């Protein structure tokens, strides 16, 4: 907050003290005063009262350009994509902007909750876009771009008009139109300080009854059979020895009272001596280097090994462009669009050699 005021105060303090720094009597020699430049570099937060918000502005139109280049990959052209994160836009109405309460949050049957349905304070959007976006290059947007993208996002939700230019001067007016600005309560006892409410009582009230507490218990919900193996073989997720072992979920559940037949396969239990880490034997040193590069350049933020995320899976790419290492190196480095659908891939800031390493791996089949 108030980084400028702080900077001024700190400068004055330093001037007054000459070169001597404020030192603690109790722990001498530990810590030094921060310079105004240092505080300005790090004090980036913006509060709901807009303290900390830098002077500047940005238009919805400019925001659209930035959005399509840097945001749409993950969030969709209209902020609607739920493929990587929850959708940002949707579920709010013009009526919500009047009341400050999102009506769909009161419906038990409304399926999703978008960011604009929930966020009560526009400062939160500005602050988070400024500090953490874009996803793979946080803090790379200019102040104008942050204003513009925030305005565009709000425009997608019908909160500001198409020709709107948002600035530090009018952001408080925008706040007065946030669809869920009145949707919060602090009347609860789950905040550890005394600031918000005087509610000190817990909202649930159980008693430690010991005998005949409830009628016979009935199972109301249990894991469906199809989900039994959805997390993999549970026999391999439990210790090999102990009072109980893991269930072999690759096999149907044994029913009590049914005799085990002679043909039944014994519940599989991993034999560690024979089958140590269950790692694919093919993974050589080269793969390791490639996987490290994929992680380093956040390729895995958009591409998974064997399923579509934002972009196609590495294995689909490998299948389509087998053997074409040079072509792939170009695409990795310069980005592209239209081959796999409407969402473009931006150019990447890796070296030629690194692009070639990844391309060679893809061209050879993208082994895990």
């Amino acid at each position: 907050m108030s980084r400028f005021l702080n900077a001024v105060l700190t400068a004055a303090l330093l001037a007054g003290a000459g070169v001597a720094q404020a030192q603690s009597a109790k722990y001498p020699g530990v810590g030094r005063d921060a310079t105004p430049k240092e505080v300005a570099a790090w004090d980036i937060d913006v509060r709901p009262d807009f303290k900390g918000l830098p002077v500047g502005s940005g238009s919805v139109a400019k925001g659209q350009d930035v959005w399509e280049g840097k945001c749409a990959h993950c969030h969709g052209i209209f902020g609607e994509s739920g493929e990587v994160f929850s959708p940002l836009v949707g579920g709010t109405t013009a009526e919500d902007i009047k009341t400050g309460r999102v009506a769909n949050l009161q419906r038990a049957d409304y399926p999703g909750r978008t960011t604009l349905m929930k966020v009560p304070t526009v400062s939160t959007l500005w602050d988070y876009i400024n500090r953490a976006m874009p996803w793979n290059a946080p803090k790379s947007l200019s102040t104008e771009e942050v204003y513009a993208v925030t305005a565009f996002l709000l425009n997608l939700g019908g909160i500001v008009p198409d020709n709107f230019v948002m600035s530090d001067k009018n952001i408080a007016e925008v706040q007065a139109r946030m669809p869920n600005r009145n949707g919060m309560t602090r009347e609860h006892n789950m905040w550890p300080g005394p600031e918000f409410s005087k509610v000190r009582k817990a909202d649930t009230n159980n008693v430690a009854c010991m005998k005949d507490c409830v009628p016979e218990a009935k199972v109301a919900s249990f894991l469906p059979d199809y989900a039994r193996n959805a997390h993999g073989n549970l026999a391999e997720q439990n210790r090999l020895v102990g009072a109980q072992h893991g269930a072999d979920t690759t096999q149907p559940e044994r029913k009590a009272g049914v005799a085990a037949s002679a043909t039944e396969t014994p519940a599989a239990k991993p034999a560690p001596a024979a089958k140590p880490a269950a790692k694919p034997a093919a993974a050589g040193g080269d793969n390791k280097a490639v996987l490290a590069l994929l992680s380093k350049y956040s390729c895995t933020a958009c591409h998974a090994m064997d399923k579509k995320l934002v972009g196609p899976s590495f294995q689909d790419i490998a299948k389509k462009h087998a053997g074409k290492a040079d072509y792939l190196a170009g695409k990795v480095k310069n980005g592209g669009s239209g081959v796999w659908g409407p969402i473009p891939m931006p150019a990447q800031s890796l070296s030629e050699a690194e692009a070639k390493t990844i391309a060679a791996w893809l061209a050879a089949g993208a082994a895990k």
Partner: protein
Amino acid sequence: MQDNLSSGRIRKAPENFLNRDEIQTVVAEAKQGRRNFIRNAFAAAAAGAAGTAALAQGNPVPTEGGDPNILKLPEHSTGLGQGVAVDDGYGKPSKFESNVQRRQSPGLTQTTQASVSFAPLQSLFGIVTPSGLHFERHHQGWWDIDPSKHRLMVNGMVKANKVFTMDEIMRLPAVSRFHFIECGANTAVEWGNVAVPTVQYTHGMISCSEFTGVPLITLLELAGADLKKGKFVLAEGADGSSMTRTIPMELITSGEVIVAYGQNGEMLRPEQGYPLRLVVPGVQGVSWVKYLRRIEVGDMPYAAKDEAVHYMDLMPSGLHRQYTNIQECKSVVTTPSGGQVLLDKGFYNISGLAWSGRGKVKQVDVSVDGGRNWRRARLENPVMSKALTRFNIDWVWDGKPAIIQSRATDDTGYVQPTYKQLRAVRGTRSIYHNNAIQSWLVQESGEVKNVQVS
């Protein structure tokens, strides 16, 4: 065997159990007479499958007149073992423990950089989570930061903005305390219905460590913070997301909040915020900011993304409860638990974990009949404030279906609620802060299933 099954007795899982692919290898080896004990185990398994009663006992005397594991001295009793660390100075668990791992829940998140891996609670003992098994939650990927370049700044409503190096922070008087850290979303997937099979996925976003560091109040005093008007503190991380959270000053002036660099006797792991993280006892994990780079003292809450948009509780009225922070009293039975199989009837030690964000666990009760009758469990020492507490209770399984539950009470008198009680207040659309009583159904087959009772 049939009789035993119908009365609930089940076949013991033989040792060195083999799957279909391994059978051929083992038979070949057995033919060569090299590993008799494997052949015997295989024969026993086959006999069990064919329906003899022999394996109904937990630990039967083999027909050969003794267990080959006893009669034939193994290699480790007759050969020379390995030397002390030569090329690997950091020890690792036994290769036979490779099943005990952190795991992701398939389909829960789309990208590994904003994801979760769960601690294997079903396999842990005591109250300390080994650092390598501590659950992970990242918001924009983890980093291994050079500690000599890491800085902590204290600014805002202070007399002088301050900068500290790690060297300086580690010169200050240190405290070491055991605390649990639980993600506010722990058990979230179960708000509406049973969703996942094991305690690792239902409750594995909790861990407990001994943390070492400097009380945050020491650093605030060094900067001359205004502790009266400055009612709130913003904690900010140095990773891409620069995770920010508002912390109430009351927790800091009490001395509880620690700027920590140590965990279980070593430095923090990179996945846990190396070299510096905030420790906020009793409060959900998202406030324990990792890669801590800045503390700002202010006079109002900051409405950071994760407190304005997430980590809120959606009430049936459509209002969100904002700034819900405290992890209320909660417990779970870890053994036996979902996805496990009891090997036979007879004695078992039911064991689990209890905790409260408001203080110490005072009492844990266990039911094996779905909450109708309860018995007081033993609390194992140490019992510490805002730390995990281990409980144990004796149980003899008669082979009939049983529903196992645990119910914790903390020293404020608060009793962990049932699902019915929690939903009566908060409905079923919440995500965070689910501390309801967990139920595990032990079936006649011995397999334990995750269930909820009405």
